[in-house]
């Protein structure tokens, strides 16, 4: 919902149905120029060194606009990414979120001067280069204005809902479909042993279990054969045959939940904790 702080004039910069419109001003911060537009090839000119994160979620376009604040305040930068699907927008949000929840878009976080939210196929951030109470309000106002310009909403991927809730550290829940993103959250080693990818999305979370914490990764494969292949690679890398095994950083275990859905536990403090988490994952499956 737009706030009274938002300027009446909006820039017609959106060229794609799911890209938002950037306001000209909000909360005393004013844009000096129209939004810049980037695509999957040019994003590296704008995001120095980290454009691959967005490509890993199927980014197709990015709008970026800088706002100058009142005297003594720093700039605010708003970046709006159009992702391949709402699930990808949700996924990049889960990968990126930092700080506490915020009431913007379909789900949002705010921390260290940065608002992040997703809505439909859009993932949006607003960043205050110098965080002050006034800048924080402007960041939220800009975010709400941008969110209001996005008509589309989307569903969270069902796979994320398959993760059991008991013991889950909510902020650790990440939805992904690229091995680099999985590696950023769970140390699975080289060569993508779980076989995650564009047609094998995964949801992962860190769980409080007896004696410490453990990772649970659910992977939804394209078909039963792909699931069997993924399970075999995981078993070779982490298990003793098909039985739980202790590796350098804890216990590992695996189970099939359906013919296409596999559950993997890593870094569990004990065999019992690993099997308990697998049992919880099975309980969450239909």
């Amino acid at each position, binding site marked *: 919902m737009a706030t009274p702080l938002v300027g009446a004039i909006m820039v017609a910069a959106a060229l794609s149905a799911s890209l938002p419109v950037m306001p000209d001003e909000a909360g005393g911060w004013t844009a000096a120029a129209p939004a810049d537009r980037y695509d999957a090839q040019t994003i590296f000119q704008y*995001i*120095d*060194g*980290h454009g*691959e*994160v*967005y490509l890993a979620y199927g980014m197709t376009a990015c709008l970026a606009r800088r706002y100058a604040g009142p005297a003594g305040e720093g700039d605010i*930068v708003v*970046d709006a*990414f159009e992702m391949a699907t709402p699930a990808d927008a949700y996924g990049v949000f889960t990968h*990126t979120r*930092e*700080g506490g929840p915020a009431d913007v878009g379909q789900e949002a976080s705010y*921390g*260290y*001067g*940065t608002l*992040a939210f997703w809505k439909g196929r859009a993932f949006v*951030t607003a*960043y205050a*280069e*110098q*965080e002050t109470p006034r800048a924080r309000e402007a960041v939220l106002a800009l975010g709400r204005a941008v969110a209001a310009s996005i008509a589309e909403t989307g569903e969270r991927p069902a796979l994320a809902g398959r993760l059991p809730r008991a013991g889950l550290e909510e902020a650790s829940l990440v939805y992904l479909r690229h*091995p*680099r993103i999985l*590696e*950023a*959250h769970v*140390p699975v*080693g*080289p*060569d*993508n042993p779980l076989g995650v990818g564009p047609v094998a999305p995964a949801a992962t979370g860190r769980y409080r279990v007896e004696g410490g914490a453990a990772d649970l990764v659910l992977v939804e494969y394209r078909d039963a054969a792909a699931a069997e292949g993924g399970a075999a690679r995981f078993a070779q890398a982490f298990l003793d045959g098909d039985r739980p095994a202790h590796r350098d950083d804890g216990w590992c275990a695996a189970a099939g939940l359906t013919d296409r859905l596999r559950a993997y536990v890593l870094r569990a403090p004990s065999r019992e904790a690993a099997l308990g988490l697998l049992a919880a994952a099975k309980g969450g499956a239909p």
Partner: protein
Amino acid sequence: MTSRDRRGFLQVTGGAAAAGLLGAGRAGAADARARVVLVRRREVLGTDGRVNGPVIHQMLNEAVAALLGEKDAAPAWRRVVKPSDVVGVKSNVWTPLPTPPALEQAIREELERAGVRPENVAVDDRGVRSSPVFQRMTALVNVRPMRTHAWSGLGTCLKNVIMFTDNPPDYHGDSCATLGAIWQKPPVAGKVRLNVLVMLTPQFHSVGPHSFAKELTWPYYGLLVGLQPVPVDATGARILQAKRRQHFGADRPISPSPHHIEIAGSRYGLGPSDPAQIDLVRLGLAEDALV
């Protein structure tokens, strides 16, 4: 080069300290001890955050002298490079936290003072593969700020050479575990004479698309200097992890795991990562050193 110069030079490039650089893969290289110098001066940063050029130059010289056991900087630098060298200074231009130009200039001046001809020194980052000086370099000085990084966990001296590769994403797998391999291949292999990890305002956590927020940096006022990359990076990683513990109030491991540092030591022989094998020489400010 005089016989004394040659002898001194060999003490750097052919000695035990350099075994990991020139003898990558040599048995026992990761077991050897390494010296790392941490120099900190509060006055290196002004109240506006600007880097004081003369102070950082002095810090660099103090560190290089202490690293090589010399009383003065000049003879130490003459052991780092010889006048006939062609020297590439691999910098880092990442916009929010670049290598300070004043430090680049200090390195350039010391290389020239050691006898390297001005036309045989170049400072570059993204353009190293097309730079005429880098293309004929015989020696490399590696200098960059320490920060958290989306793929490698930490932006380290080890990672700073990735711009020499044909396709940097080839090294992004398993959280950049194989970065050490770059150091075994041309044009990097055997050429790195000095690693300088800039710890003036290191970044201990990342947020948002631009991976930066000023409040995720802090004034540490330091430089870490060593001959091998692994002990330098490992020491920097310990400092960042300690800062994260202090900031978050709990252990929050660097994510993704910066295991490329340990692997570069154990698999590629680029020096020890175990603090028990690192002789840390401390100069200057001791307060809040975190290591």
